[in-house]
């Protein structure tokens, strides 16, 4: 039972701004931002940075990166938006199966896709081998911009597809019916009604695609296209040639380009239009476009999913292997452990930030939440480099003995992927009606008890979902892992990279399949947590 204390006792007055929580969240955000300072300071340390910045090579890298981001982002929208529309609004045959199949390429790391493409369509690849009997000896090269664009599009369009789907599902489709009764054609109704409503979601998906493309290291490296990440990695390893200065400078440029993309996205997104409620409208009948639509979906699915799986099978059967690079199950354990630690940390650290930003409109809370997102936009190769510099300068004997590298690697994962956990947890907090916690308060529970007994059980699925997402992305992360892993610490990803670089494809097949299985498993956890309906109490 509640006991009342008099005003003169001065005990336990309620406070409006949870100051302790704010300070905790701010401290977390500040730590997350610290690697950026390293990038800036080491770039400014570089000798003759003005000269380096204007060198022809630096400029060509900037142009290449810009072209790649533009091409992949537009192509992803051209694939993702129609795919979303087909699976949400139309009578596409096998709609449910396509709904899932079209989202699945997200599970496959793009560098594995790149290897598969190279193996299938590259020089001395399977296609050429098949065509040799008919006298075709060379194929058009798939190295460079075109090949990189195709591969990255196939593995990033799901970002646009998923956000567009969510937006199409949540909009009031009867508005489209209304437009049709006001003598608008199907296309005119899409342009004037549907598009303005899904535009913010498409922009959000496109932003993810652009950031992924800009920060992806594996695909351009495999397809031999000189963009920021590839050059930074190469220059960093070129210790004798003094490439580290250039690597630092390019890192800074890469961050600058990322900021530009973020700014462009917020302009394009606008405030958007939101309908008050969602309602299903008429299903669009495809008519004679039915089978062409199925064929298009099948083409995307086979290129993005079936081809890599088939190639993995072929490698496994008749690829070359090296005894010195034997696969050990311990590598899987390494991957799972380090990804698990990162996921757990992210799940816990996301709590105060997500709770704060969902509960108060305080500007400080907003700044803390936004600041924590900056790390997400910093490419893994830059993050890895910044932490290597940090470790080398301040790690002392710990760095030389490699003891500090593993904590730094986990830190890099947390900085880069914490926003995923925050987003998921924040959505879960927002889904819990505020009156529930108030109800617990009026029933004699302190703020802490009310949070633990009411809010936490309700948001737990969202937090687990966010942590699973962090787990999934950490398992796949390549550049920071390569830069920061201590000698002798091999993960699935670093093993796959090593054997494929060495050309022993057969040995890459099994770990790649294992990686896909673990990834698919965590994808299931994510999907299950999204289906958990938190609140009928939601307004």
């Amino acid at each position: 039972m509640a006991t009342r204390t008099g005003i003169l006792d001065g005990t336990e007055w309620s406070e409006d701004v949870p100051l302790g929580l704010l300070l905790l969240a701010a401290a977390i955000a500040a730590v997350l931002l610290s690697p950026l300072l390293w990038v800036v300071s080491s770039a400014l340390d570089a000798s003759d940075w003005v000269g380096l910045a204007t060198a022809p090579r630096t400029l060509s890298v900037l142009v290449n990166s810009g072209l790649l981001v533009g091409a992949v982002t537009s192509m992803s929208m051209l694939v993702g938006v129609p795919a979303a529309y087909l699976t949400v609004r139309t009578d596409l045959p096998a709609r449910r199966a396509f709904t899932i199949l079209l989202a699945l390429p997200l599970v496959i790391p793009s560098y594995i896709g790149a290897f598969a493409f190279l193996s299938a369509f590259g020089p001395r690849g399977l296609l050429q081998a098949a065509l040799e009997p008919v006298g075709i000896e060379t194929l058009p090269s798939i190295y460079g911009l075109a090949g990189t664009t195709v591969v990255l599009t196939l593995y990033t369009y799901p970002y646009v597809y998923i956000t567009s789907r969510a937006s199409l599902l949540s909009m009031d489709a009867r508005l489209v019916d209304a437009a049709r009764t006001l003598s608008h054609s199907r296309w005119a109704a899409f342009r004037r009604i549907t598009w303005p409503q899904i535009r913010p979601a498409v922009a959000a998906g496109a932003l993810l695609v652009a950031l992924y493309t800009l920060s992806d290291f594996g695909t351009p490296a495999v397809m031999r296209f000189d963009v920021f990440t590839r050059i930074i990695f190469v220059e960093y390893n070129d210790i004798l040639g003094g490439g580290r200065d250039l690597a630092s400078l390019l890192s800074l440029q890469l961050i600058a380009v990322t900021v530009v993309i973020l700014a462009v996205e917020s302009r394009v997104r606008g405030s958007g239009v939101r309908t008050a409620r969602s309602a299903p409208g008429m299903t669009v009948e495809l008519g004679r476009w039915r089978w062409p639509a199925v064929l298009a979906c099948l083409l995307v699915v086979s290129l993005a999913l079936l081809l890599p799986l088939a190639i993995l099978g072929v490698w496994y059967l008749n690829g070359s292997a090296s005894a010195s690079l034997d696969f050990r199950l311990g590598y899987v354990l390494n991957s799972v452990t380090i990804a698990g630690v990162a996921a757990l940390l992210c799940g816990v650290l996301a709590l105060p930030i997500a709770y704060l930003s969902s509960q108060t409109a305080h500007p400080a809370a907003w700044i803390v939440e936004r600041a924590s997102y900056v790390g997400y936009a910093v490419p893994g190769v830059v993050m890895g480099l910044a932490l290597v510099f940090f470790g080398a300068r301040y790690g002392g004997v710990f760095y030389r003995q490699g003891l500090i590298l593993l904590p730094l690697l986990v830190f890099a994962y947390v900085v880069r992927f914490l926003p995923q956990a925050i987003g998921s947890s924040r959505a879960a907090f927002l889904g819990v009606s505020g009156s529930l916690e108030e109800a617990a308060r009026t029933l004699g529970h302190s703020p802490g008890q009310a949070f633990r007994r009411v809010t936490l059980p309700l948001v737990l699925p969202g937090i687990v979902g966010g942590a699973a997402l962090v787990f999934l992305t950490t398992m796949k992360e390549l550049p920071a892992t390569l830069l920061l892993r201590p000698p002798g610490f091999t993960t699935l990803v670093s093993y796959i990279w090593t054997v494929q670089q060495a050309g022993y494809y057969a040995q890459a097949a099994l770990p790649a399949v294992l990686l896909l299985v673990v990834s698919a498993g965590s994808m299931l956890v994510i999907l299950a947590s999204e289906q958990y309906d938190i609140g009928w109490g939601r307004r």
Partner: protein
Amino acid sequence: MSFDEQSQTYGDTTENGIVDQLRYGHPERDPDAKTLFELDAVSKAYDDTTVIDDLSLEIREGELLTLLGPSGCGKTTTLRLIAGLETPSEGRLVQDGTVVARSEMSIPADQRDVGVVFQDFALFPHLTAAENVGFGIEDHENRGERVRSLLELVGLSGLEDARPETLSGGQRQRVALARSLAPAPELLLLDEPFSNLDVDLRVEMREEVRRILKETGVTAVSVTHDQEEAMSISDRVAVMNAGQLEQIGRPEQVFQQPESRFVASFLGHASFLSGTVSGDVVTTGLGEVPLGRIHGLSAEYEGSRVDLLIRPDDVRGARPAGHATNGTVVHRRYLGPTVLYRVELESGDMLGLMHNHAEEIALDAPISVQLTADHDLAWFPRGRRQMADGGRSTSPSTRADSENGTE
């Protein structure tokens, strides 16, 4: 005495207490009822917006008090202040003689002996009905028994293990009520308790909630914007407007003797009949009304211009047979069982008339309107004709009746 002073003292409960007792048959104030909770000159402002302005209110032990007002009048904020979910900017809140809040300081909700039924019921979706009810009484020595008897009280025996999402709206409300009653709070607060229910269920649950509250004997404060709901369940009604208390009293009293034009218009369809005090009558567009028929108006107001409050059932219209006509029907609204006519009197006043649906009076027909009220009429000093719909002033010749009210 000026009109302003008069309108403030008019209807003062202490002065008219005995008269009221005779008229309405209830004691105006239970002499034994003590004040359980008191708001003393309370104000609440968010940034620059003042939501509650210098509000003073007493809640008496055992009563069901309803805060009634249009949306945005501050009634829900008042409730949240009492619950300890908000902190007052100024003033004091006193519970049982203990100050529980004063400017910028407040004992939090979990340390006040106050239960709340939320507008959306706020049932914990991860707990069963019984777990919800037992949530606030973990230390109770006989918890299981208490939960069972409460569920029985609200008529939900057998649904102990049901999850909130499987319950109907009425059942959810019953669980919410049982949950808030479980710790036996000194004071129970209900925030728009019926607004989330279907219209049919609303009337049924009103009776049911009143029965349960009276059975447990708990003191309750409810909040609503529905004047019918307020009048049908409350012991006392407090009408609020723009963050201030307009009037507080028993439902009959507030309805029949409103102290302001706002209260008159908000509680039901109200028209105002202008007149002048002359001798022992008031001369109006409906003829002479004896002073004795007008509540609290005496001969000392000789020569004053006044407005009489006319409800649609206080007047009747008839096609002229013997009588001379005194008005014209300008609008007619068919409401099913009744018809609401708007009549423009020759004097310029606009009156609302309620008639049985069987009687037909044509639009634009000249008619004779008679004052048939069998109770004393309320009156207001002439001049400020504030309406419920935004408080604008209108001249007597324009629309004088408010559309707010009974429909």
